[in-house]
């Protein structure tokens, strides 16, 4: 479903972010990418969103070469991929409800769908009572749960969670991981990047370990080894 084919990325100042990275992800998998800061985890997932272009190699999503999709069509691809970021990236001028609804509106969904689906995902992340709050009125954990709700509301095939727990305390971290696990159980592929040992060890799922732009381990049921 997702296939990285010998992907390399060299930034303008000749610093190497990725070097000859190849791996594939099957539908329904829960895959964690671990590594120190600067190991290339974020660059790797940004490639899938076409937020970054590789200097060599290619990235395929459902047999489409992501970087051959023209700029004005890329949003159709992104609707199939939900994204959750370390810094939440909610729209500050919109309420929790509107943030989630925006992703549906942007995808051109009908009003009735929005009215039925948004409360549903709000319920899934247990934030029904905060629907009309603006992001700055929510805690970090709550913001991240809204971001997850936004990511899943269009029923994407994949969710990319780039260090979603990086800014959260252990309790919130645990909650977020539980929600991601639940989403995965419902059939959505999840790509999680993290450097939180506890999260990885609790998951007992596939782990790709990166170091200085290279994959150094790929374990079926991995632990955090670095």
């Amino acid at each position: 479903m997702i296939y990285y084919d010998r992907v390399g990325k060299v930034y303008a100042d000749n610093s190497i972010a990725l070097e000859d990275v190849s791996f594939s992800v099957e539908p329904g998998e829960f895959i964690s990418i671990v590594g120190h800061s600067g190991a290339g985890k974020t660059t790797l997932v940004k490639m899938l969103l076409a937020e970054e272009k590789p200097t060599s190699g290619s990235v395929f999503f459902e047999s489409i070469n992501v970087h051959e999709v023209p700029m004005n069509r890329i949003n159709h691809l992104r609707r199939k991929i939900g994204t959750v970021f370390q810094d939440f990236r909610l729209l500050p001028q919109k309420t929790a409800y509107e943030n989630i609804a925006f992703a549906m509106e942007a995808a051109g969904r009908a009003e009735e769908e929005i009215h039925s689906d948004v409360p549903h995902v709000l319920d899934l992340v247990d934030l029904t009572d905060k629907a009309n709050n603006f992001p700055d009125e929510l805690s970090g954990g709550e913001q991240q749960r809204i971001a997850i709700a936004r990511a899943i509301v269009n029923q994407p095939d994949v969710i990319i969670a780039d260090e979603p727990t990086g800014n959260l305390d252990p309790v919130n971290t645990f909650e977020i991981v539980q929600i991601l696990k639940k989403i995965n159980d419902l059939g959505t592929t999840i790509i999680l990047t993290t450097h939180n040992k506890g999260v990885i060890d609790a998951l007992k799922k596939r782990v790709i370990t990166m170091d200085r732009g290279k994959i150094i381990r790929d374990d079926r049921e991995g632990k955090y080894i670095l």
Partner: protein
Amino acid sequence: MPDSVTIKRILRAGFLDFWRNGFVSLASILVMTVTLFVVGTTLFAGVMLQSTLATLRDKADVTVYFTTSAPEEKVLQLQKTLQALPQVQEVTYTSAEDALTAFRSRHQNDQLTLQALQELGDNPLGAELDIKAKDISQYDAIAQFLQQQQQNGGGGASIIDKINYFDQQHRQALDRLQEITDSAGRIGLIVILILVGVTIAISFNTLRLAIYTSREEIQVMRLVGAGQFYIRAPFMVEGVLYGLISGVITLLLLYPVTYWMGTATQSFFGGINVFSYYLSHFFFFFAIIIGTGVLLGAVASYLAVRRYLKI
């Protein structure tokens, strides 16, 4: 082509952003109002300048003095011929008697001159034709034509005594007037263009800054899967709103400003009252100012968002 649901969402998003970004909206509207006010006042300045220059140019004329023996019908015939010339705007006939009356009243405090006139007994003044051209540059052609008439003389002695265009002084004055009005018009136009250009640039920048504050949001929208048009359109709605509101404020502001300026500057601007001009040309001002505002808002927003869509 976006469907009605999309259009509704875009409009709602534009209005909501406008309202929730209250301070940014206020600042943008203020700057844009200044821009439109400058556009409006330069429009006035342009009109005033034109009318002032027109009154100045209107002071130019050429006078033909006829001999005392010139028969009236011949003078009137020449008046008709002149009137038929394409360059000529107006020809005024002053009979010998009228010329004398005018001369008397002009010198009514000058006993010596009046006495001398009395001594003469006969009217020493001839009839006159006052010629106004449509344009100040056309006096030369008219004078040439008159000179030909003078030389041909219709067989006998010419009825034309003197054409003041061929006076050195009169001619210099005419040339100078033409130079001054021409360059004043040119300089006025340049100043207006610079002023309008600068203020439009300031407005543009303000909108760019307003959208700069939303750059991260635009990125998030892109990553959530929103299309370029769907992201851009609400910003353009906001820009158009800024333009509309600033336009209305400007039109309202111009009302007291022109009222106050109207009476104070009427005589200075060659008889045009800016207030009544504003009222009588209100739809012209409405179209220009609202149109400029809306166009400026939409185009500036369109361009400002573009740079953040490259992701």
